[in-house]
């Protein structure tokens, strides 16, 4: 691991250690926050008991589905909008202000239309994530050097070959930024929707545990979400860094 990586790990360990200490010394009431070590023990017990497995699979399945739809549809829509400058001009203000609007206000409408099922949650995940992918696609395609189009013509490449063999790889770093954002936003959209109103899922279980003052279960599942989201993001970050290093655009 790099020096920066060790420092990062040390900062995290110190933060967890401080929280543990504050809880143990009574500076933080354990009825409000349990020590991180107890959160970990509660999580292990919960996983061994299999009590929440169905909810875990359901929630992460929905997150995966929402992220996949957002990435694929976001890329396709981004590519189409990029090819239609007038459409893009008209949509640009909406993209610029999209995340200023609290998207969750539409969640009740989706429940009315689709019922209390997984569909509104998937749609909320997609609604939260897709615009990040569209914007990343537009940004990526904007940054494809114009000279590549000339190179394609010199090699007598058609439109599809140019798009797949040159434009797509050239735009890939920006597209991958979109993928990272889409995955993160899908997590937020799905968990938050489940938290507000859902028949099942981790968000719902956390919400129930909160209502029932079941701190151990609540913090165990929160810890699980943090661990999974961190692992997924770290994995995407490592892949991104490897590509960036190869292209000489890695951030220190």
């Amino acid at each position: 691991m790099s020096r920066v990586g060790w420092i990062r790990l040390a900062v995290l360990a110190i933060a967890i250690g401080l929280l543990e200490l504050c809880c143990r010394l009574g500076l933080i009431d354990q009825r409000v926050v349990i020590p991180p070590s107890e959160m970990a023990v509660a999580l292990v017990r919960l996983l061994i008991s299999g009590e929440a497995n169905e909810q875990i699979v359901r929630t992460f399945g929905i997150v995966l589905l929402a992220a996949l739809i957002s990435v694929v549809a976001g890329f396709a829509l981004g590519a189409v909008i990029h090819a239609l400058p007038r459409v893009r001009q008209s949509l640009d203000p909406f993209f610029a202000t999209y995340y200023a609007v609290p998207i969750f206000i539409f969640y009740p409408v989706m429940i009315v239309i689709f019922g209390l099922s997984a569909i509104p949650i998937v749609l909320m995940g997609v609604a939260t994530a897709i615009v990040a992918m569209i914007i990343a696609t537009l940004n990526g395609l904007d940054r494809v050097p114009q000279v590549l189009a000339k190179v394609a013509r010199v090699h007598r490449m058609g439109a599809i070959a140019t798009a797949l063999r040159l434009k797509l790889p050239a735009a890939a770093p920006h597209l991958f930024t979109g993928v990272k954002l889409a995955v993160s936003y899908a997590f937020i959209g799905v968990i938050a929707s489940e938290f507000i109103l859902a028949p099942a899922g981790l968000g719902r279980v956390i919400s129930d545990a909160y209502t029932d003052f079941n701190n151990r279960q609540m913090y165990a599942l929160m810890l699980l979400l943090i661990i999974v989201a961190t692992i997924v993001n770290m994995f995407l970050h490592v892949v991104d860094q490897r590509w960036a290093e190869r292209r000489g655009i890695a951030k220190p």
Partner: protein
Amino acid sequence: MTTAAADADIHAALSGVTRVYPETIATPPVHALGPLDLELKRGEFFAVVGPSGCGKSTLLEVLAGLQQPTAGTVMFEGRTVSGKVPDGIGVVFQEDASFPWMTVWDNAAFGLRRNGVATAEIRRRVDDALAFMGLTEFARAYPAQLSGGMRQRVCISRTLVLQPRLILLDEPFGALDAQTRLLMGDEVLRLWRRTGATVLLITHALDEAAMLSDRIGAMSARPGRFLDIVVTGWSRERDSKIVSEPQFGEITGRLWEDLRGESLKSLGHPGMAAG
């Protein structure tokens, strides 16, 4: 020389070529080039110099088939060039056109793979081109790991492996420092001698044009037309050492005489041209 022999000696030609960029929402129509005539002899090294914005790159793109002329005809090896880049023409651009997601070797092999050339032949030609351009030890490197000059050599290698008969160089060393440009010039001369290809070089550097070329076309400010064609008289075996010869100074002096007024015009100071 008979007419047929003279025709066979003409590798590419532009006759009465004009290029006008049509009006857009933001800009009026721009008359960029011509009318202009040019005949490139088979195997010669021809450079085009001129003030910024005089249409040098437009001339190259029209000759390559990347742009359609508004009027006039473009011929390459006896055939009209229209809308497509003909087989046998290779272009090296000013901008870094290497593919950052491919290794140097894969960059060089790109065109051959596109053309479905046999693997063994690809290996032979790419290894040969990389050795010629001094890139063998960087074959597995990515463009980001190379200097600007080396990346430009990668692009030249990618063109070279396709064995073009007409090589068009659009200010390929524009982004490099003066010393590197001189050395790259030597490499281009070696390449030209070895391939026997006809070379058209677009450049804003008078010394580069004077050192590399058999003939130099000096262009006017926009719309670009040839004001003067300077024959350098260098031997085919020349290299960058000729910059110290008196004739080199005479050539660059004549080019500057041709271009000084035009350059001032392009800067918006026509009145100073007489001074």
